[in-house]
């Protein structure tokens, strides 16, 4: 990450020059931020406030909204699909807190050991990140999972007991998660590697002189050394896990029998297929609540990190 010479925490220090904060200059500079925030308010803030309001209305997107109090929440809470979607989001979060982070850490420490080919491996691992989700989804769907055109189908014809994970209620969610894992872990590996390189060489050298094994090195030197980065990535993982949409929407559309439905696809379906915008808004609020807690920690860590 780019180095930072100024910090948010330094805000309390007086400005070096009075002229910088002079009212006239301040007013001119206020104009500079108008475009960014004007766009942000129109696209994000105002509609977000409307979503909060809509969660208490019944609205089909066309006629006039009608105030219904907490009915939308009552309706979604009594819907078993909502609860299975929420459970799926939680399972998803747990998977992504463990698997890609572990894969990324292992690969990143290996990159640290390897002296040759670091750039090559980094680029290869990062490649899935730059491919569009729609394309990644179709490649896995057709070329890997499909019983007709995919590698799984080929293995099945050769007598191996493999079926399309997307077609089973107990496996669909994991089938989708695998695709997102593939798309995602390389990013974490590259981030962790960048962080590992900042761990002071003296610490590593000292541990080596004491004859530390790989696991001891990892546990006592490397992991503590990049803990802030790991924490940050975990918080972001939680936030993103509640936003997952593309892969579920393209690969299974939440099926079979809602077994891979997540909150974001549920909200989308409520809004655009069932024309039940109020319930969609209610689900969106639930998603946001989970995100909000994580966002709080994210902002706190970001500012604290800058302060150090």
């Amino acid at each position, binding site marked *: 990450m780019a180095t930072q010479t100024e910090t948010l925490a330094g805000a309390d220090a007086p400005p070096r020059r009075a002229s910088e904060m002079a009212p006239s200059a301040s007013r001119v500079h206020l104009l500079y931020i108008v475009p960014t925030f004007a766009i942000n308010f129109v696209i994000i803030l105002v509609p977000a406030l409307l979503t909060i309001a809509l969660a208490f209305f019944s609205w089909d997107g066309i006629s006039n909204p009608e105030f219904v109090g907490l009915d939308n929440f009552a309706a979604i809470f009594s819907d078993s699909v909502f609860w299975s979607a929420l459970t799926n989001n939680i399972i998803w979060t747990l998977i992504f807190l463990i698997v890609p982070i572990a894969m990324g850490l292992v690969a990143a420490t290996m990159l640290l050991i390897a002296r040759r080919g670091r750039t090559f491996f980094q680029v290869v691992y990062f490649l899935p990140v730059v491919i569009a989700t729609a394309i990644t989804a179709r490649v896995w769907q057709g070329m890997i999972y499909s019983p007709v055109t995919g590698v799984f189908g080929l293995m099945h014809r050769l007598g191996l007991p493999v079926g*399309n994970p997307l*077609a*089973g209620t107990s496996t669909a969610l994991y089938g989708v998660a695998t695709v997102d894992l593939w798309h995602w872990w390389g990013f974490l590996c590259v981030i962790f590697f960048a962080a590992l390189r900042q761990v002071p060489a003296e610490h590593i050298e000292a541990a080596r002189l004491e004859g530390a094994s790989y696991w001891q090195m990892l546990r006592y030197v490397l992991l503590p050394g990049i803990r802030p980065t790991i924490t940050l990535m975990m918080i972001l993982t939680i936030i993103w896990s509640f936003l997952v949409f593309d892969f579920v929407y393209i690969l299974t559309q939440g099926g*079979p029998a809602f077994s891979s439905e997540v909150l974001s696809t549920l909200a989308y379906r409520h809004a*655009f*297929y069932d024309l039940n915008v109020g319930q969609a808004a209610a689900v969106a609020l639930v998603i946001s609540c989970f995100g909000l807690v994580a966002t709080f920690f994210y902002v706190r860590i970001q500012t604290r990190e800058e302060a150090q």
Partner: protein
Amino acid sequence: MERRTFMKAGLALGALPLLGRSAFADDKKPITFWYEAASPENQQHLKDLLIDPFNAAHPDSELSIDFRGEDLDKQLRIAMLSGSGPDIVYTAGPSYVASMAQAGQLLALDDYAQKLGWNDRILPLFMDLGKYNGKLYALAKTYETEGIFYNKTLFEKNGWKAPTTVPELEALAEEAKKMNLVPFAAGNADWRPTNEHYVTWVLNSIAGPENVYKALTGAIPWTDPSIVAAIDKLNEWWQKGYFGPNYFSLTGEQAFAQIATGAAAIAPTGTWNFGLIPTYFPQNNAEPGFIGFPSAEGIPSPIYALGIGSTFSINAKSENADGAAAVFDMIFQPKFYSDMNSVWQGEWNLPLKDLSGVTISDKVTPLYGEVMKNLATAVGNGQYGYTTWTFLPPATDTYLVSGMEQVWLNKIKSADYLKKWDDTFKQEKDQGKVPAIPPRPAGA
């Protein structure tokens, strides 16, 4: 970045609306039409038989068809909400039209029907099925039924006989299973509502059309034992593995191809699949066969369930409604019927009153004409069955599709399924969303 770049950006933004306008600089009024998936050959047929002749005959309009694939339904719903959908609104059946008509997204077609003489040309039953609250919103593009497609060559080789009773059908399925064949070729990977094709099957052939008619008109609830028995039968077939291991991974086309290659015994599906026969049967040196579903005891056999496979409507926001109506007018003619059905079977069975002027190419399997004649006869004397996508209101139809999946996968019991189905139906009946069901001749 310097100031010049800012100015360029400003220019680029300013120029955008101009670009949009210049694209329509010629005076032709566009007519947009989103179609579902079509093979490249069939896309060519549409161009040769519809787009080119229409544009030649109407120099002031420019008809264009955009193929949207399996996503058509979703895209259409989202687009109609913003009033930016195509001029010609194409849906997968009257159940899909209902919600759009109710939301005021469609134009009433009664004036066009009168002016252009559609009432005289189209079978009245189908005109009635396109009506909501007394107004005509949709024309039935194709009417269809379901039955069993099979591979005569494979049947001869195995010494099988096309089943004419339910026990025969089940015996055949068991035998196919023993031979490691998929008993029923089926797949919903590309079209989730494929589930309702099978629900329709058992409703008509196990519960019987009389009971379905009673349920549709509210005389009995959907939780009636006859309906429960039908759903239980369908679930029993599923649990026995008749639908094969890959139902959720195969597309309808991939599944259908299995009977041509001899990987599956029968394909219980709709007549729209006649269009796939030339693609798969000749290359496998197989001869196709088709029979109606055998019925349970006490029900006339076979029952031909009547379905409207797709519908035409006009977008309420269309700027060229007259043009769209002119397109319909060109389609609902004996000439178009003849030409289209000669090259593409199963998707263009237009409900024309008078088919005396129709001649279909002799290259088409005679089976097709035979099946369509049987269906027309059943419709003529009121002895038809009911497809769910034609006669059920939208929310009930949506629920029965996802709910059946939950029954199959042991997430809910069939009784709970039908209970929720019945609740949804009653709610929609109260809201006046159930289409008018044509009366059934007594003693049928």
